[in-house]
């Protein structure tokens, strides 16, 4: 009886999950072996041709590199800032609740709204970036129009958006550290930096690994800001993998190639899932 009930309870969710996750994932893989059909020429099996095209596509390699730089640039910075934020907010700071609120607020804002607000900061001359730069005598720059500056410029915004979210994980971890450690360090006369380096930081390592993996996954999904700020430009200098998928599918209408690009994205996410699984396994062994 429990078999029947179990499956009955699961069925509604299972239908939707299969319909919109498993089936499309497999269909994407299948589509990547076919050509894009048109009214004149129906879609046909082309084997690995789409993948060969992908390897020859300079834009693919560029968005792939962009994504790697985007991840490398945003994740460590956001993690360091998040850790500092958590250490501060965990102390008896005056107006602590207010400070914590300020750090976390960007997390609840939609990326589209954030990009709308930041767009103005990037404006040459009148934007905040240039006005702050002018204080230090820096020349005016076209932050979003210069292929060398656009990716770092958008990364600043993403760090701002994400650091507060990572902070709460560190905060939770800090609050679970035994207070005796701090007392012992005080008696021993250890400096705060020493204590952080030798005690707090190593104990936060599981949290750091956890945040690291999640942030990496996020870095493949964060593309909303591109729709407002740059449309991937100039010359794809700020484009990311998922944004390129969107462009290929809905601007160039090459669905087969979009499917091929999606397969790359799925493989990357699968690899990250394996890493995450191994990390969880490891943590279980610690206990």
């Amino acid at each position, binding site marked *: 009886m429990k*078999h029947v*009930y*179990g499956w009955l*309870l*699961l069925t*509604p*969710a*299972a239908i*939707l*999950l299969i319909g*919109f*996750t498993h*089936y*499309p*994932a497999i269909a*994407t893989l299948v*589509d990547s072996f076919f050509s894009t059909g048109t009214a004149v020429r129906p879609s046909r099996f082309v084997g690995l041709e789409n993948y060969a095209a992908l390897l020859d596509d300079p834009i693919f390699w560029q968005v792939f590199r962009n994504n790697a730089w985007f991840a490398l640039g945003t994740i460590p910075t956001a993690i360091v800032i998040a850790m500092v934020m958590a250490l*501060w907010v965990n*102390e008896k700071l*005056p107006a602590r609740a*207010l*400070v*914590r*609120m*300020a*750090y*976390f*607020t960007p*997390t*609840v804002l*939609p990326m*589209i*709204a954030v990009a*709308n*607000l930041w*767009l*103005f900061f990037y404006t040459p001359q009148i934007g*905040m970036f240039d006005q702050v730069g002018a204080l230090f005598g820096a020349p005016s720059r076209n932050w979003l129009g210069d292929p060398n500056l656009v990716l770092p410029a958008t990364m600043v915004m993403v760090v*701002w958006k994400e650091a507060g*979210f990572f902070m709460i*994980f560190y905060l939770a971890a800090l609050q679970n550290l035994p207070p005796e450690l701090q007392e012992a360090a005080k008696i021993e006369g250890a400096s705060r930096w020493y204590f952080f380096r030798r005690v707090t930081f190593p104990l936060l390592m599981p949290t750091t690994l*956890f945040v690291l993996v999640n942030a990496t*996954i996020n870095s*493949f*999904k964060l593309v*909303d800001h591109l*729709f*407002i700020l740059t449309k991937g430009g100039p010359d794809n200098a700020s484009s990311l993998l*998922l944004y390129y*998928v*969107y462009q290929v*599918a*809905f601007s160039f209408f090459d*669905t087969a190639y979009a*499917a091929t690009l999606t397969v790359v*994205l*799925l493989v990357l996410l*699968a690899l*990250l*899932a394996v890493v995450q699984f191994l990390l969880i396994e490891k943590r279980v062994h610690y206990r």
Partner: protein
Amino acid sequence: MRLRTGFVLETGAAWLLALLWLSPLLYAFWAAFHPPELATHFDLFAPLTLSNFAKAWTYAPFPRHFLNTIMLVTMILSAQLVLCTLAGYAFARFEFFGSNVAFGLVLVQLMVMPEVLIVENYRIMARLGLVDTILGIGLPYMASAFGIFLLRQTFKTVPRELEEAARVEGCGFLGVLWRVYVPLARPTYLAYGLVSVSYHWNNFLWPLVVTNSVETRPLTVGLAIFGAPESGVDWAVISAGTIMAVAPLLVAFLLFQRQFMQSFMQAGIK
């Protein structure tokens, strides 16, 4: 004495960072409540105005976008609560044939969110005739792996004795779920609800792909069209529109800060 200065310095740095973190939002508020020509000139005594909000309200069909988002968020959350409760209950209390494999397959969605599969999901929606409908935006999210996982974990902590007592009282397996499990999982439902509402209030890519008319577009998509540089709307009005769009969630967050942070944390840890 050295300790004291250290503390003051740290407090100052923490406050400075907080101010820096709030500044984009504060700046948007400044611009939204002042005449457009003052957007870049700080003057504490500049006249305040609501005309930017009035303009934003008429430039874009905000009332319609608000309605769409509210309908979308409500529809997704109610469907999620029902589907995830049933599935979570199945995984927590029925060791049915193939349940471990099924659970593994459910967890796949944690990694492969519907927005990664936009190409194929769009095709499915086209086949179902659901392109440009609110149901079409919501459908891929209704069976949420995260919700199922969260409720399964919560239901597993419910003592079996309570269930047996309810059975003695004559409850069927759905009665047990409704009378015992659901009430005990209230904090989980609250946390999940907050995360789900925030997520879908803010979600953009999939709604953009699957909608193409004012009647179905949610706030984020409307805001993107309105805020795009080529729309030529001036910055004060864009700020006003953006603030309107984020206001409900922002106010909710300011009122229930602790609850929000805890829910987001649970959502992350999974």
